[in-house]
């Protein structure tokens, strides 16, 4: 497997690297889910969580992942533009560099911010979600979860339904699934599809009912209620009726199919409470798997600082 120097976009990975990350996470899962104690692997390493956008869930997940591997964690948070705090974006990055951190986990509401930060810093950058662009660890934990339930994903059919336009998860998810040979169908109201969706290499449908019988996974995306005010759709009631997953639609799925959601869920909009809590839902597992995936990413980025070092067993 080619070594990782940063993890900014799934686009930067090849299939072998994705599989390598998943296999690594598989071995780390007992540590992530606390069947085994934490390991000393990253002792002495300092991981900085640079969160320019609030996300308690993702930050805690990265925090736990680093701590399960004995890294030290520092948190640097600020909302919105770094400039609004009176410090330039560049200075924030350079400050972290000067503090001698070994890895920066960047979360930003601005698409591209982690890539920009990576130009100022020598240390590995791990994208924890940027604007509408990418959320690579989310996609990796999702395909990890799918693989644990379905085995090899080649030829499997994943339906991604919801607000694709504004979703960094969807962009990463489709790329990761395509790398593993899965077929993806995007389902959304036309107003919530991105421009030129066919260029993503996914199929597109407006009809959730039509694609369900053929799905191995239904992946629901969060729909923000405030989108109603920009005329994306008229009401959450109408949204739920046409694009939400309820028990009737759940019954149309093949028996082996699973239901996923990146969280936090809007119960009653994109997913009903019955579906979220059903035995088909693996949403809670996704959370634990997220820690294992983030451990794997930190391990692969941080153990070994000689770039391109040959891996000998």
């Amino acid at each position: 497997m080619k070594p990782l120097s940063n993890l900014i976009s799934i686009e930067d990975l090849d299939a072998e690297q994705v599989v390598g990350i998943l296999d690594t996470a598989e071995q780390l899962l007992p540590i992530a889910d606390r069947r085994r104690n934490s390991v000393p692997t990253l002792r002495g390493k300092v991981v900085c969580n640079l969160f320019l956008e609030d996300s308690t869930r993702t930050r805690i997940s990265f925090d736990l992942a680093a701590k399960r591997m004995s890294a030290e964690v520092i948190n640097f948070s600020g909302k919105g533009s770094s400039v609004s705090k009176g410090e330039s974006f560049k200075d924030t990055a350079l400050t972290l560099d000067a503090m001698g951190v070994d890895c920066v986990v960047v979360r930003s509401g601005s698409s591209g911010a982690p890539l920009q930060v990576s130009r100022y810093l020598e240390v590995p950058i791990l994208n924890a979600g940027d604007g509408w662009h990418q959320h690579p660890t989310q996609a990796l934990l999702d395909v990890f979860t799918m693989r644990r339930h379905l085995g090899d994903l080649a030829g499997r059919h994943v339906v991604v339904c919801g607000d694709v336009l504004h979703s960094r998860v969807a962009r990463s998810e489709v790329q990761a699934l395509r790398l593993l040979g899965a077929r993806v169908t995007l389902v959304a109201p036309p107003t919530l599809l991105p421009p030129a969706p066919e260029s993503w290499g996914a199929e597109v449908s407006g009809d959730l009912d039509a694609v369900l019988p053929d799905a191995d996974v239904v992946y629901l995306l969060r729909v923000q209620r405030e989108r109603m005010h920009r005329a994306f759709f008229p009401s959450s009631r109408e949204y739920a009726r046409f694009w939400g997953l309820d028990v009737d639609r759940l019954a149309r799925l093949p028996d082996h199919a699973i239901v996923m959601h990146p969280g936090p869920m809007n119960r009653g909009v994109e997913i009903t409470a019955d579906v979220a809590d059903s035995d088909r839902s693996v949403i809670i597992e996704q959370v634990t798997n997220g820690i294992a995936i983030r451990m794997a990413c930190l391990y692969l980025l941080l153990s070994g600082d000689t770039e391109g070092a040959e891996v000998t067993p």
Partner: protein
Amino acid sequence: MTDAAFRSGDHRPALLLRGGRVLDPASGTDEVLDVLVADGIVVEVGAGLTSNDAEILDCDGLWVTPGFVDLHTHLREPGFEDAEDIASGSAAGAAGGYTALCPMANTDPVCDAAAVAESVWRRGTEIGLVDLFPVGAITKGLRGEELAEFGELRHSAAKVDFFSDDGKPVADSLVMRRALQYAGAFDAVICNHSEDPDLTAEAQMNEGQVSSVLGLPGWPHEAEEIMIARDLILAEGLGARLHVPHVTTAGAVELIRAAKARGVHVTAEVTPHHLSLRDHLIDGYDPVLKVNPPLRTDTDVQALRTALADGTIDCVATDHAPHAPEHKDQEWEHAPCGMLGLETAFAVVNTDLVLAGLLDPLTAIARLTSGPAGVRDVAGHGGAIAAGREAHLTVLDPEVRWTVDGRGLHSKARNTPFHGADLVGRPVHTLLRGRFTLRDGKVQA
């Protein structure tokens, strides 16, 4: 002697530009000739000219053209001198072969009153590297509500006959209609920033495949075309003069072409960067590439090049928009729009259009001189190289290869999208009223 030469009190030795390829679009001249300049005036144009006392300037292998005219420049003074001021912007203009610049009205204070226009114009005259023809605001404070005092501005020392709220569209159709109507009383041109603001509320770059993958809110081409279509319909109905700034889409080109065919009094400009750069370059989120209107697709670039060649688009205008590095060094979303243009405009047009065989040299020079000069009154700049006319001249080396270095430009800012690019062609000398403002590539401050 003209007023201007008298005013400048120039009595320098005569200058003989010998053996250059004279490209003079106003007269259609394209041949190797000598040009004799004295007292700020072109004395004679012809072959084998001699003069006993004139300094000889060897122009062998070079092009001698009218001084360039830029209809669309942001000099940032007053108000934003951290990015550029009239002195640094004038130097950039001279270095780019320009003798006339039209500084835009979005300064602080806004150029919506005679006093502001006159202070900009006077400052330009004091510096003396280029002549400034300030652009007045269409509406007070660029707010899109009440008209600025066109008459006061027109009759000021700055003689403003061109109005734009550039950067902001006049969204209210009624205000736009009245602006076009009212401008007629002063023989003025209205230039409206073409953007439907509802369609671009969050926009960050051209809407399309690239924005889709980058996760940046898209700027649909319709936003530009809807506004241009509206303005063309209004101008046509009133018989008014409309100028369309920085055209960027194939659809906009078609609208303008059709309007011109119907006889609408419309002119249009295109920037060097929209003629050269495409949206896929943004894959690294370098905010230097953020501009309004945004970089578009290859289809659009091809349409713009064709339109410039066939005259649908009248001229190249730089939309030179300096921004201080600390403003550009931000997240893409927070970085301001704009790019430098003055010092690379000729090289880009020469490299991407002339050398690519899409534009002959005379037409290329026309789009930088007589083209813009035909849009508004720029007091003879961009006009014929002929005896008795003021000597606003540019001497270009069309073959020199150079690598653009953002830090080596005369602008205070460094936000050139061409940093590191290898371009062909560069001004060697620029003459304003017969005086060197650029000599051997050095600005003569």
